[in-house]
């Protein structure tokens, strides 16, 4: 790719990779600092990513209630959260959302009060695109990034990718780069996640960044079987039944999924939404217009009939792990590289439990802005010269052996299975995790040695490499955390181990290594009361 001197080339101060919630906020923040910004999206900025298909609430707490909100969240983070970061995202969420008023038609309630907390996904991301364009950014749609570039000193200095139209390679030289590529859904077909293949995690580690919290990658959401409609609101009212139509004693609440998983391991699982009150049924199509589509089209009366359900893995999307944040402006451990949103570890604000839609959206909005500011400042401080750029991409891009046919769909299926199966990924044991790890290692070796290609094929090879890599970091981290904490549930090590009340880092490509950070005294004392 680097040798193709006909490839389009751009120069900019800040390159933002990924045009979802975090990437658009990063773009806007960097542009406000006076930086020239290019946003490159694998799909289309405005529909890409999991916000566009959802309807996130935010962690929207009035100032007088914030101290209590942080204290509660810190307790539930099970020793891995950081109260200062929680307070920071609460503050920034409160001042940021009203800025969208020119682009998003916020509703008012019956008392005429403007409702800022929750935004409907398609309209939210349409507004964010307009906001980013208004800020002066250049948006490149359908321009997937394949690898990062550095200068001779190892400072991240841009990226290279392929334009889907015409399948032409391109390069961008940038003063700093923000990775906002989203979480990794491990090919689970989760709604809106097709482009969320963990690309940023792989590119970041290749550049010298590390990861944190990758063991927390097993959050599951119920949905109508065979569809992808993982919208959780209606299921908060659900009654659950086995195939013989016996109602199951499954308590409602945020921890319903492991109960559902146990039922699904025994047989088919069904749901009735007949407890949803009439007034909510009537307004549902205008609250969540996508949720009602499968029922309307398949001729199912969701409020009267039972329908089959399954669980979809949300991977690191509603899981927690990602690139480790190494500073107040969302620096990674790689110089010139910043991370935001679901591409970054959210442990600082969620700890060992899912941030759900609300905390994760506030994190995306906040970390995006800090990363954008940090990248703009970093780019300002660099001298510009025609330095030679080094291409960092390895597995899936530049095979170490001869280029040969690798069964990429089989590798994707392996990832989907090992990172999705309820009995391996929800209910974990050291033995099964290690067995998964070995299979994934084998897939990695094959891809690293032989996978590559051209155009869209190259993108697929690279995405597959990224998913396999993310799955390996996840399994390796889960093996080493020999306890149960939050969503990480070890059947062979139930309960918290106070010695492991700390975050765990992961890195490495051909050889994955993990290590625990020292626990902070604050967390250790919390652990004692937990």
């Amino acid at each position, binding site marked *: 790719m680097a040798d193709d001197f006909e490839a389009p080339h751009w120069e900019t101060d800040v390159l933002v990779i990924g045009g979802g919630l975090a990437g658009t906020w990063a773009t806007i923040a960097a542009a406000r600092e006076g930086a020239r910004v290019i946003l490159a999206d*694998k*799909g*289309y900025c*405005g*529909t*890409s*990513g999991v916000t*566009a*298909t959802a*309807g996130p*609430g935010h962690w929207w707490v009035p100032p007088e209630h914030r101290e209590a909100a942080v204290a509660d969240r810190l307790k539930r983070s099970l020793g891995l959260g950081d109260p200062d970061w929680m307070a920071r995202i609460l503050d920034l969420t409160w001042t940021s959302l009203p800025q969208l008023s020119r682009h998003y*038609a*916020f*509703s008012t*309630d019956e008392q005429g009060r403007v*409702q800022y*907390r*929750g*935004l*409907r996904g*398609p*309209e939210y991301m349409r507004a964010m695109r307009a906001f980013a364009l208004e800020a002066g950014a250049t948006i490149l*749609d*359908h321009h997937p990034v394949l690898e990062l570039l550095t200068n001779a000193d190892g400072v991240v200095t841009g990226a290279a990718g392929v334009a*889907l139209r015409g399948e032409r390679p391109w390069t961008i030289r940038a003063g700093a780069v923000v990775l906002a590529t989203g979480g990794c859904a491990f090919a689970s*077909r989760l*709604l*809106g*996640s*097709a*482009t969320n293949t963990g690309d940023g995690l792989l590119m970041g580690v290749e550049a010298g960044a590390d990861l944190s919290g990758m063991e927390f990658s097993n959050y599951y959401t119920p949905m*109508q079987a*065979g*569809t*992808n*409609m993982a919208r959780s*609101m209606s299921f*908060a*009212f659900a009654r659950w039944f086995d195939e013989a139509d016996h109602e199951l004693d499954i*308590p*409602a*609440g945020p921890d319903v999924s492991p109960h559902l998983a146990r039922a699904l391991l025994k047989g088919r699982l069904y749901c009735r939404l007949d*407890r949803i*009150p009439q007034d*909510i049924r009537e*307004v549902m*199509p*205008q*609250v*969540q*217009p*996508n949720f*009602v*589509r*499968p029922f*309307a*089209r*398949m*001729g199912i009366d969701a409020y009267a009939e039972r329908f089959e359900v399954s669980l979809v893995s949300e991977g690191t999307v509603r899981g927690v792990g990602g690139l480790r944040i190494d500073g107040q402006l969302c620096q990674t451990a790689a110089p010139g590289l910043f991370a935001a949103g679901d591409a970054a570890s959210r442990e600082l604000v969620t700890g060992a439990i899912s941030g759900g839609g609300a905390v994760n959206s506030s994190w995306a909005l906040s970390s995006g802005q800090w990363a954008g500011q940090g990248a703009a400042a970093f780019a300002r401080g660099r001298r510009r010269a025609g330095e030679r750029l080094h291409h960092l991409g390895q597995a899936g891009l530049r095979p170490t052996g001869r280029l040969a046919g690798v069964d990429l769909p089989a590798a994707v299926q392996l990832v989907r299975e090992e990172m999705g199966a309820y009995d391996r990924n929800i209910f974990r044991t050291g033995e099964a995790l290690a067995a998964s790890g070995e299979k994934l290692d084998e897939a990695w070796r094959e891809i690293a040695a032989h996978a590559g290609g051209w155009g869209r094929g190259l993108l697929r090879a690279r995405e597959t490499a990224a998913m396999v890599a993310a799955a390996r970091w996840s399994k390796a981290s889960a093996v080493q955390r020999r306890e149960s904490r939050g969503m990480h549930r070890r059947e062979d090590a139930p309960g918290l181990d106070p010695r492991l009340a700390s975050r765990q880092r992961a890195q490495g490509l051909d050889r994955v290594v993990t290590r625990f950070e020292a626990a902070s005294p604050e967390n250790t004392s919390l652990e004692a009361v937990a």
Partner: protein
Amino acid sequence: MIEVVIDDRCGGCGDCVDVCPSDVLARGPGGKAVIARQADCQTCYLCELYCPEDALFVWPQTDSVADVTAQQALATGDVGGFRRDSGWDEHAATHTNQHWRMGAIFERARLMAIDAAKTARTEDGRTK
């Protein structure tokens, strides 16, 4: 997956081709949208939302092609339903965005669950 482009409705604006996050659609002969890479479709329905002519139809099944015809799509009565319920374009006045009620709906569910649990305990005779 995306199953149908209703050819006589498609006005050839190309918006669906531009907004598809998985680059599934392309412009065919005469500029009309065609399904070029169906297997890549992530069933997000967003192409429907951006189609002012309601010419597209996504079937909820995610893992395989269902071979839905234009006629079958129209028979569901839901072609254009997503754009209508979302209140886009000409539907803005009649289908306002009620998403802001989500928090209150979740709260209703939570309170109902607490009530149900209380009732269950009372029936078990375990409460005073």
